[in-house]
């Protein structure tokens, strides 16, 4: 048990001090490439011998970014631009961004002017993603991005290297899928905050190293006795669940995150890769095959049913929607799945969050009442 705690603490530390973790990677002589939200071709970065790291904002005061963005822009992107302008990201050897939403399209352009010091690779994923021309389009984008990355890395990416990177990523994704299921066995040890930090650590580590560490943690969990838990189990939905104080509120009220539908967490790894085709094709199909994601167009939105199934499978008591304020795509999905959840009689708590909030107290109270209602 002491071992397990230590192993977990190690990953938590990475998530709590990302700058230190990234500096650690750099000190090993590796280059690092920043990944804007949401889904990017990390395999290519990895195949080029570099480490992709996440750029999902942070709790920072916004001053410089106001030069580019009105106040009604989502807090993740305001924070990213702020930190880019402030030089916080100067240790990055490159940055990739894909234009998944209107905000990202604009910030793609602003970033070029505002943060000229870091090599920047903009790209586009298709929305009409299930037709063959979209697959071809993605392949063309991947190869364009690969050429840019090769320049930064100073190496050539071969099919073997891509193949190896794909294996590393599929192993990491499989490990994460297994991990989120293990929460059920140890809902106390893997409380809402710890679960989040463990998953978050993956954004600042070599995925191969991360997977080894996560596998070791899971082995220890499998060997340990299951924990008694009489609290509330919920599925969380949204882009991400920060600030951390929000997760403290889950923990304080004995609310466990039994499964998630977060862009920052499960949506990264829940789609299993296909096994046939070139690596580019497999990467493209992971986008084409994704379901119930606000950022990926779906003619017959399946998100509501997806959440209902997730609640059922994970035996959750309800859903907590963590709505990232000013995130249009998520805000459009909500009224639709709200009706579907209501019809299915799934209890739901809707909260608007921002990365930097004056006070999370009102949210704490709401989480508490939701937990009381469900218990």
């Amino acid at each position, binding site marked *: 048990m002491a071992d397990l705690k230590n192993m977990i603490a190690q990953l938590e530390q990475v998530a709590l001090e990302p700058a230190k973790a990234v500096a650690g990677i750099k000190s090993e002589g590796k280059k690092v490439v920043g990944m804007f939200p949401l889904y990017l071709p990390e395999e290519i970065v990895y195949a080029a011998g570099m480490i992709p790291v996440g750029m999902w904002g942070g709790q920072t005061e916004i001053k410089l970014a106001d030069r580019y963005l009105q106040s009604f822009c989502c807090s993740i992107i305001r924070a990213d631009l702020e930190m880019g302008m402030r030089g916080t990201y100067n240790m990055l050897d490159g940055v990739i961004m894909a234009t998944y939403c209107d*905000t990202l399209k604009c910030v793609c352009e602003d970033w070029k002017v505002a943060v000229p010091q870091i090599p920047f690779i903009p790209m586009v994923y298709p929305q009409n993603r299930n037709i063959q021309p979209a697959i071809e389009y993605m392949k063309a984008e991947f190869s364009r991005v690969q050429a840019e990355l090769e320049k930064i890395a100073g190496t050539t990416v071969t099919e073997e290297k891509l193949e190896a990177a794909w294996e590393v990523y599929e192993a990491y994704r499989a490990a994460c899928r297994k991990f989120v299921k293990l929460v059920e066995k140890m809902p106390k040890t893997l409380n809402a905050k710890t679960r989040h930090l463990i998953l978050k650590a993956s954004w600042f580590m070599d995925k191969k190293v991360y997977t080894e560490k996560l596998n070791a943690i899971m082995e220890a969990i499998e060997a340990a006795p299951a924990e008694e838990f009489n609290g509330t189990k919920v599925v969380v939905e949204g882009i991400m669940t920060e600030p951390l104080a929000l997760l403290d509120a889950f923990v304080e009220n004995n609310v466990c995150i039994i499964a998630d539908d977060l862009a920052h967490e499960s949506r990264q790894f829940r789609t299993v890769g296909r096994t046939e085709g070139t690596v580019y094709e497999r990467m493209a199909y992971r986008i084409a095959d994704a379901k119930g994601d606000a950022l990926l167009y779906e003619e017959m939105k399946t998100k509501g049913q997806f959440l209902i199934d997730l609640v059922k499978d994970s035996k959750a008591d309800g859903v907590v929607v963590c709505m990232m304020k000013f995130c249009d795509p998520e*805000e459009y999905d909500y009224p639709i799945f709200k009706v579907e959840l209501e019809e299915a009689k799934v209890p739901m708590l809707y909260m608007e969050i921002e990365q930097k909030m004056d006070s999370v107290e009102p949210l704490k109270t709401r989480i508490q009442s939701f937990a009381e209602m469900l218990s």
Partner: protein
Amino acid sequence: MEQKEKISSKEMLNNLMANHYKSAMEAKANGELVAWSTSIAPQELLETMDIKVVYPENHAAAIGARKEAQKFIDDAEGRGYSIDLCSYARVNIGYKNIQYADAENIPLPDFIFSCDNICHTVLKWYENLAKDLNIPLIVFDMPFNHTYDVPDHAVKYMKGQIEEAIKRLEKISGKKFDHDRFREVMEQSNKTSQMWKDASMVAKAKPSPLNGFDLFNYMAAIVTSRGTKEGYELFKRWKEELEEKAAAGLGPWKPGEEEKFRVMWDGIACWPYLGPTYKGLKNNGINMVTSTYPDSWTILYETGDVDGMARAYSSNYVNRNLNYGVDNIVNLINEFSLDGVVFHSNRSCKLMDFRQYEVQREVEERTGVVSVIFDGDQTDPRAFSTEQYNTRIQAFLEMLENRKEERRKG
């Protein structure tokens, strides 16, 4: 004599729009297919198939101008739509539920046509409509051009979608797609687009015969009638009128009302406040000569060239990079001899807003014109204050006057 027999372009516009709404309602009543489409979508396909189409953005604008947006907005917000979302979407989703407006009425669609060259928002909004109404949705995804021009692999992808869309339209309508007719429609659409552009270009004259707020009115027709001869005739008539005025040296307003300053408007109108926004400028002798509207529907390509068509649709300025956005405005400033730019920071439209500050800086730097940004919204009446607007315009006027004075001094 002959002059008198011609009806004015304003009447033509009114007739055309009345007929647009009426014929859509009739088509629905007769059991014909009706589509809802975004405002800059490849309407050529629908026109070729002779399918009636109405445009929710236009309709929402009409509702906004009629000052009845709030009840539809309330309906949508009551269903969980955030106040931060595009107000066209909120109005339209409210309308889908309420199904009656004093302004105009549109029939519910049998399928939906959505092109994201104007924003990602329309993908989400239309996805919701299709889900709620349980009808097919045909999407044209036009990848954002972070490059100046449209890259070839994007053209291929878009062409592929047009081909897919044709197959789906055949399936939905049970009719064969007529490629000869398609060519005719392409030709007509180009002619109408060009005429719309030509008419707007008459405003280059000094003083401008055009009061740019008219662009907001005529825009309704370029959206609905780009593929038709009626649209072409309307813009031709409008152009003639403007040319006649220009030849007579007439300005935008009544004789004696001098056009002191010439400016452009960036973004969408504030429909519920057309009067106050117009007067705030006009009362100070400021004429809005042009805007980003004319080029948005100047969609030109060779007849029969589907690649070119895809490229043209993807070339909308909001779907292109910052350099293009800046060049676009700089060109308008030069072509129309403008003194300033009015930027509408539109609470509804993140895609137009989040580059605006930088565009403003670069445009000012490159041209030396002055500009102002005001807060508003295209249809949500709560997000605009006439008082604040007037204060901004007063400050703008001072800048315009100072600049004129400085230039006079050399």
